[in-house]
């Protein structure tokens, strides 16, 4: 197949970026989307031209590093799929495909398709954990957790922190990301002690980092590669209200 690509090129954080046309020839349907970009980059490299910068690492949908907006949709057309797992058989010969970085105030562009997501780390640092040190843990089976609760916690814990939810949201809100961690820890017995302080601290940090508020449009859920449910956001709001009433 042959595709016409329009790819965002931006030299640095302060530079103005623009879409640049590239032709992708001999694309095999078995290629992943990123492998298709590898081939273009290999061509650019051989010509001595600056390769297109984009993030990726595991290339199997778990590290959360890859982060491309394809034809306006974070991670592209397949539901529940990171762009590194997207395959070219999903595209048609002759199609024009636009590739852009995540766009959000809290995720400034570093170069081309690479953005700075360190704000997510700061949100977790603010309270996304159980405050225990190594050494004092009781026996693993001393804390029974029902299968149903464990599964529910796991559904939320599956978040890969890619930031697609923020990129899809017109308010650039980090609510789906935050709510996943809050939901995981608020259903588990281990998370109870810091249940109120956690939600307050994480939301305050997200505000400080410039993420927007949630207006319940649901775009985040639609693009989440791990299909984290938006019901977590409602849970987070309840947790927050609960914390406020508890006077935290």
């Amino acid at each position, binding site marked *: 197949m042959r595709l016409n690509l329009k790819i965002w090129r931006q030299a*640095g954080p302060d530079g103005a970026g623009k879409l640049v046309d590239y032709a992708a020839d001999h694309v095999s349907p078995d290629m992943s989307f990123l492998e298709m970009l590898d081939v273009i980059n290999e061509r650019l490299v051989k010509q001595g031209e600056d390769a297109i910068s984009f993030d990726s690492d595991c290339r199997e949908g778990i590290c959360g590093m890859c982060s491309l907006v394809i034809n306006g949709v974070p991670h592209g057309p397949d539901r529940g799929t990171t762009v590194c797992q997207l395959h070219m058989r999903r595209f048609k010969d002759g199609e024009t495909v636009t590739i852009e970085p995540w766009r959000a105030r809290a995720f400034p562009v570093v170069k081309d398709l690479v953005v700075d997501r360190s704000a*997510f780390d700061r949100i977790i640092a603010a309270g996304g954990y159980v405050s225990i040190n190594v050494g004092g843990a009781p026996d693993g089976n001393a804390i029974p957790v029902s*299968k149903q609760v464990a599964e529910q916690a*796991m559904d939320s814990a599956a978040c890969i922190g890619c930031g697609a939810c923020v990129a899809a949201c017109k308010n650039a809100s980090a609510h789906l990301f935050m709510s996943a961690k809050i939901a995981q*820890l608020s259903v588990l017995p281990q998370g109870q002690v810091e249940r109120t302080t956690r939600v307050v601290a994480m939301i305050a940090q997200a505000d400080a980092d410039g993420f927007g508020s949630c207006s319940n449009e649901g775009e985040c859920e639609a693009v989440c590669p791990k299909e984290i449910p938006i019901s977590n956001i409602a849970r987070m709001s309840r947790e927050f209200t609960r914390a406020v009433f508890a006077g935290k």
Partner: protein
Amino acid sequence: MSSSKLDAKVPGGPIADKWDRHKFEMKLVNPANKRKYTVIVVGTGLAGGSAAASLGELGYNVLNFCIQDSPRRAHSIAAQGGINAAKNYQNDGDSVYRLFYDTVKGGDYRSREANVYRLAQLSVNIIDQCVAQGVPFAREYGGLLDNRSFGGAQVSRTFYARGQTGQQLLLGAYQSLMRQVHQGAVRMFARREMLDLVIVDGKARGIIVRNLITGAIERYAADAVILATGGYGTVYYLSTNAVNSNVTAAWRAHKRGALFANPCYTQIHPTCIPVSGDHQSKLTLMSESLRNDGRVWVPKKQGDKRPPEQIPEEDRDYYLERKYPSFGNLVPRDVASRNAKQACDDGRGVGDSGLAVYLDFKDAIARVGPETIKAKYGNLFQMYAKITDDDPYAVPMRIYPAIHYTMGGLWVDYNLMSNVPGLHVLGEANFSDHGANRLGASALMQGLCDGYFVIPYTIGHYLASTALPKVTTDHDAFGEAADNVQQRINQLLAVKGSRGIREIHRELGRIMWDDVGMARSAQSLTRALARIPALRDEFWHDVSVPGSPDNLNQSLEYAGRVADYLEFAELLALDALQRSESCGGHFREESQTPDGEALRDDDNFSYVAAWEFQGVGRAPALHKEALVFDEVHPTQRSYK
């Protein structure tokens, strides 16, 4: 025959008491003094992340580095199947001793007993720690922790969180780490690549990194340095490892004097999705846990091209069940991989390329229903379907072995310190616990054991018992190392040739897979030892590395890693040539039993081969650490 460079410092006494006794004998750092010590931790995977968090909790001043944009993205995140621990929650006969025994045997009697015993002992604490952090491990209906079986063991001791165990364990460590960052105990430096080790007065005192965003060459000084930079599987180009995995940090430390042990011990995982074409950038693992329910088979007849559903039972060869009745589909990885290769070499491979075998879930689905299978392996089945466009609930998976893990690594003593004082090495980056073959679900165990439970003690001992005058980054040794790094970057950018970096890496991978892969011989290794330096010359004459050194330049990063692999690959092949026995994942065609199993030569090779760098293209010096087995008597491994 042990060399004077290699004192493993294994404590005396019975094996079960060694660690306790050592903990008592080690010096402690006064709590008030910990803040005065700075420790550099390179890597944020299970090993590095857990080490940095624990040292921060103890009160050390920690500087933590990684190449990804966040510590949470270290390659450990990709581990699927599970983590072992000798909890014996299943009441099926497990014990610390059995885990120890299985690991030494699984490693084909090429690991250091005392380290393995400690690993088995501490395994139980890891699970406790992770549960307390809120890691959502799989549970039984009564609320207790669930287990599954992994290869090389006849007990169920593997704890898991769906098919995302590594992710959940790493997020547990990452969250503890971020808590320390929040408290100011750990300073995090993401998107930094370590490019040199700084040695002052014979001790590791700092590192040189490239800031991957600005291109700046930065210097960091410390009282001790910990490398937890993962494995070198991507020397084969195609592997199950993440694409940024590299040997660079370990290799640069090696060039500064750290010995590299057993580089030829590489693990080929039996169940990966087969290669589909030249464009392929990595291979995807299908977790070993699938062998709990999947049955491996090929057609009995050569060249049988019927689709799998049309091949009746009597025409199928479930070769693992046939040859190894007691372990069946759960034989260790090296055995499963070699048997898959044999079946394909025999002309009975399946799929278009003939380089695949079936992993069939039909019987399991009939037995427990598709929903149960989905609950256990849903994400793996989905991953398979996305890559191959086949539905594994309906047709058997096609799988083939791929490079997955590297048992070799920097040599360390019982304290996890290399021969360079102050340089400690944890996780997959060291050589210590898995001998010539790692059992499934034991890497996560080792990484967390090293980081949470070993290094917090042993580094204290080092710091408390060593004179460490203050060193700053103005020291000449920092200047020299920074210049060294800058020069290499300039050289890469100056070649301005015509060949792609990826193209050369792919070519290196092909040499390694063909000649230093699943089966090795003196002939293939000698050939590789001629081809690797030739390719290295070509790289330095004709590679094209575009762009500037002063900002994000992924071509430059990649070229640096490939350049190091082109040096390291030679050492790997040389080590494989030197070891003319077969053991574990290292299979020398000249050394096999009549039925094709790996044949060890204990009289001549019961040692760790630790190599000392002498210059690029110059023969390294070999140091040997003799392996002594007081507990487990080496025998021909049998899984029949």
